[in-house]
């Protein structure tokens, strides 16, 4: 796509992608380890549980799961795009600045503390993981800023250091934990899409949608930012504010995604690259389309994870790694000239 973008063409493309996403979501909701007949679903829920299991499975189990996968995939892909733009590094992914180890630490702290939660309420692991992620990102930002005014290298280094340190703490905690606690934590860390309640789903959907829309508003300035900080300033863009806003929003939606589903890898790294290859680097287009494609990708991956070894299931992170890894290598090989990270 080499035309300069217009509002109309962008609108058309986004609509088209949304339609594709809806189709993927519907198809995947119909697939699973149990056969579900659509006709029975439409007769509505039975008066007591167990009467219309097709309805229960489709609407109670599969639909929330598919919606969650779409949300998490969208959040991770969107966040990946933003971080790659801010850090001016095509190898950045949403976890690069400490979110992964922060969330992991929160999760293992929740498991170890044995926090009792209202049995029918939300899970403490999600809350702890979210808080852990946010605090860590904030810490990394502070360190990065303190060692020189928003210099990208310092931010990256701070992220690497914090990641390493927290990973060591996680290792220590794992070594003193009970085996079932260890197992729980490891499973959580691998990245899983599970069935969440409507309230949790609703709140997260609102947050992720709001964050994505906010980032869309910043996407034009991300274009300018990618020219370099001095250039951006000379074009009238408030680089500091743009970086803070974009970074905060990206970290926020990633923290929410991680608290819902653990650390699902590769989506935030590979999807932006793939979409950039097809649609070009204009972030006004790249961001929304990456979000949509990321959602579709994760929905498909999760469906595969559910089906491939039924009735057991694989963690969705396994599928994304197996699919994403080779894809990334192919990307790299074929377009190594295009993906240059000269500064």
């Amino acid at each position: 796509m080499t035309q300069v973008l217009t509002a109309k063409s962008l609108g058309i493309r986004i609509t088209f992608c949304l339609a594709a996403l809806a189709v993927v979501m519907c198809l995947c909701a119909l697939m699973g380890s149990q056969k579900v007949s659509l006709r029975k679903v439409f007769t509505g829920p039975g008066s007591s549980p167990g009467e219309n299991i097709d309805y229960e499975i489709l609407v109670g189990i599969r639909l929330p799961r598919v919606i969650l996968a779409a949300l998490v995939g969208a959040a991770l892909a969107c966040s990946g795009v933003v971080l790659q733009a801010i850090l001016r590094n095509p190898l950045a992914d949403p976890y690069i600045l400490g979110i992964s180890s922060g969330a992991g630490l929160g999760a293992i702290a929740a498991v170890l503390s044995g926090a009792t939660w209202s049995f029918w309420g939300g899970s403490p692991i999600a809350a702890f993981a979210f808080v852990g992620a946010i605090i860590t990102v904030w810490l990394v930002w502070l360190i990065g800023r303190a060692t020189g005014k928003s210099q990208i290298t310092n931010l990256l280094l701070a992220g690497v250091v914090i990641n390493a340190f927290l990973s060591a703490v996680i290792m220590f905690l794992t070594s003193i934990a009970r085996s079932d606690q260890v197992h729980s934590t490891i499973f959580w860390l691998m990245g899983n899409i599970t069935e969440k309640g409507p309230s949790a789903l609703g709140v997260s959907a609102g947050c992720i949608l709001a964050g994505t829309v906010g980032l869309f508003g910043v996407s034009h300035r991300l274009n300018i930012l990618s020219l370099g900080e001095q250039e951006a300033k000379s074009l009238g863009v408030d680089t500091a504010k743009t970086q803070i806003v974009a970074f905060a929003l990206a970290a926020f939606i990633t923290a929410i995604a991680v608290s819902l589903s653990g650390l699902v890898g590769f989506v935030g790294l590979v999807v932006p690259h793939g979409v950039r290859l097809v649609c070009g680097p204009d972030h006004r287009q790249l961001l929304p389309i990456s979000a949509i494609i990321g959602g579709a990708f994760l929905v498909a991956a999760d469906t595969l994870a559910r089906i491939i070894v039924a009735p057991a299931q694989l963690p969705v992170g396994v599928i994304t790694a197996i699919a994403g890894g080779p894809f990334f290598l192919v990307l790299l090989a074929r377009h190594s000239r295009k993906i240059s990270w000269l500064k």
Partner: protein
Amino acid sequence: MSSIIEVKNVSFGYFPQGSILQEVSFDVKVGTFLSIAGPNGAGKTTLLNLLCGLLRPQAGSIMIEAARIQSYSPRRLAQKIAVVRQEFVPVFDFTVAEVVSMARTPYLGTFGFDGKIDREAVSQALEATDTAQFAMRPMKNLSGGERQRVFIARALAQNTAIMLLDEPTSFLDLRHQVHIYDLLKAAQLEKGKTIVAITHDINLAAQYCDEILLLTGRRPAKQRPGNGTENPASYFIGKAKDIFSPAQIQDVFGVRVFTGKVGNENFFIPLGRFAKDSGQANSS
């Protein structure tokens, strides 16, 4: 003629080297072409960054169109000043048209979708710099000269009263050097823009510019240029023929030059130890 840029007693220094610019004062009149020259480290780029608002003077003030530079929001300032820097390659694969359209950012809304005026400004700029032919090519596939023209196109599309350039021709061949300077001169004469360009090529500077600001990189207080004798001044400003003389050049750059004349204008050829001297000067 009014001054569009007024620099009053500006001082600036980097920590810990100490001050680079000390109490510099000069004016740039509307629609003139000023060249900033001087040895490396004299503070040329620093001065440019001060003029475009990237750096804050540690003493003194800078006025743009009779208002303090600090009083402008970044957006308003970008509507007044366009900057062309030396080299950059965008990390992402933007095309020429996209990069030039980014120049319209100071006039656009949040989403940066351009209107008719913006598109016209962009196409005019592409025409003027003769870059319309590869408008759809990614920036990475351009040669150095083509890239430089695109940067100039971007600055032109930004449609500002002032253009600041940092060595716009440092990596270019003769033909492109002349082309760029012709472009700038045309912009000055036909569109009334004020051009301030840092340049290493004193001959080109002398040919095209109305005034030269020569930064010597020395510390002592300012003085107006005298005649011939050693002046421990930190900068000089004036017409090319007043500023550039063999003695001055020797003093500031530490290089012997051969002076020739083309019509009324002087030109200078540097003479190093192994230079082929013809006419003046004895080899050491």
